[in-house]
């Protein structure tokens, strides 16, 4: 029986993009469903009744929720191709640690950069640059966080880069100037097909952010 795989997602979501990259990297055929978050589908509400959020992976009718849980599920289920987590337990712990770090820091910092002003925004900008520099240190001289190939951490972080143009425009600063090594890494990732076909256009993300600002009455 053929696998039925559905991804419930929302096009600008960094968390959704992670899942798209992983599925593409492993050559998994799936149905992509873009949700209207102001009018969530019955399927989404049924598959993620607790959080009612995307992304949700539905595999043969069974839901998997939370992007990092989904990534590990994809890695373990379609384990024959393109392993995402390293095989060494210590390297796996390092990957999980840094993904946890990114999730705890980045999303909130990003939100503050595009939606606040004054001192709060300046602090968020400064912390974002510090976080990126810390990640540059972790990358070191490797082409990817996963080493010679794209790995778990690369898949988890690279979608945030689609929001950088929006952060730069809203925050009036240049991440490229501050973190060139990080930007070089994002360009390397974009040369990989599973990444480039899964990420959205940063200009479209900026358009979306401007709509959000208008909707929330943010200048």
């Amino acid at each position, binding site marked *: 029986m053929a696998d039925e795989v559905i991804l419930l997602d929302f096009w600008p979501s960094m968390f959704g993009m992670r899942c798209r990259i992983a599925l593409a990297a492993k050559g998994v055929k799936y149905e992509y469903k873009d949700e209207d978050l102001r009018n969530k589908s019955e399927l989404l509400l049924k598959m993620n009744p607790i959080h009612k959020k995307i992304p949700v992976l539905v595999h043969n009718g069974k839901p998997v929720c939370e992007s990092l*849980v*989904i990534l590990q599920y994809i890695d373990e289920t379609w384990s024959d191709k393109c392993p995402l987590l390293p095989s060494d337990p210590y390297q796996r712990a*390092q990957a999980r640690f840094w993904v946890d770090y990114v999730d705890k820091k980045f999303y909130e910092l990003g939100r503050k950069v595009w939606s606040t002003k004054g001192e709060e925004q300046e602090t968020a900008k400064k912390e974002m640059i510090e976080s990126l520099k810390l990640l540059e240190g972790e990358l070191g001289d490797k082409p990817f966080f996963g080493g010679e190939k794209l790995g778990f951490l690369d898949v988890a972080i690279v979608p945030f880069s689609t929001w950088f143009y929006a952060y730069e425009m809203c925050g009036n600063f240049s991440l490229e100037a501050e973190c060139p090594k990080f930007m070089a890494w994002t360009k390397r990732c974009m040369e990989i097909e599973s990444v480039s076909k899964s990420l959205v256009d940063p200009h479209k993300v900026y358009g979306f952010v401007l709509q959000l600002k208008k909707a929330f009455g943010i200048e």
Partner: protein
Amino acid sequence: MDGVKLHGTWASPYSIRVKWAMKLKGIPFQYIEEDLFNKSALLLQHNPAHKKIPVLVHGLRPVCESMVIVEYLEEIWPQYPLLPIYPYERSVARFWVKLIEDKSPNVWMVYRTVGEEQEKAMRDSLEMLSILEEHGPNKGKKFFGGDNINIVDIAFGGVAHWMGVVEEVSGREMFDAEKFPRLHAWMGNIKSLQLIAENLPDQGKLCQYLACQREKLVSSSSQN
């Protein structure tokens, strides 16, 4: 095999998760008590990103973040498995661990705040309890892991025990036995395990410690 050290503090529910996992798996380790007001150079070296405990040092290599450590222990010491075998069941366990990780800081905010901030922390804590009561895995069984405790029980165990002390120190009731009968039964089952019962911090000492912290935080916020 390389030696294992755990940098932790007696008053931390995150430290205790790692301790429980190691004791369940029979992993010999050296415990190093850290003073959070005077962090050791070794701790700062091993966890420069967060500067927090717990930190596991295996040989010379540090692993940080309590649930990352527990997954690491699971992979190297498979005895007393804490995660199911199959990917789908593993994803369910990891989903619940994430929910507990995301929502449990609200419990600490109940004793760290007053007024509207405390009210919000109470609402969010009660929401977490309601979700676990109604939807937590393996309903009808002794533990979230089924007949044996697993990674979800370990994640929530520390939070639940600390909750009792937070209630006492803040004077706010969260863990009502009538509202949360399933979770109360679960707590009884967890504490009936000798290994868990023998590795809980002294209740009186913890009360005193959190009360002292609350006093400092509340008085410093009222001065702002």
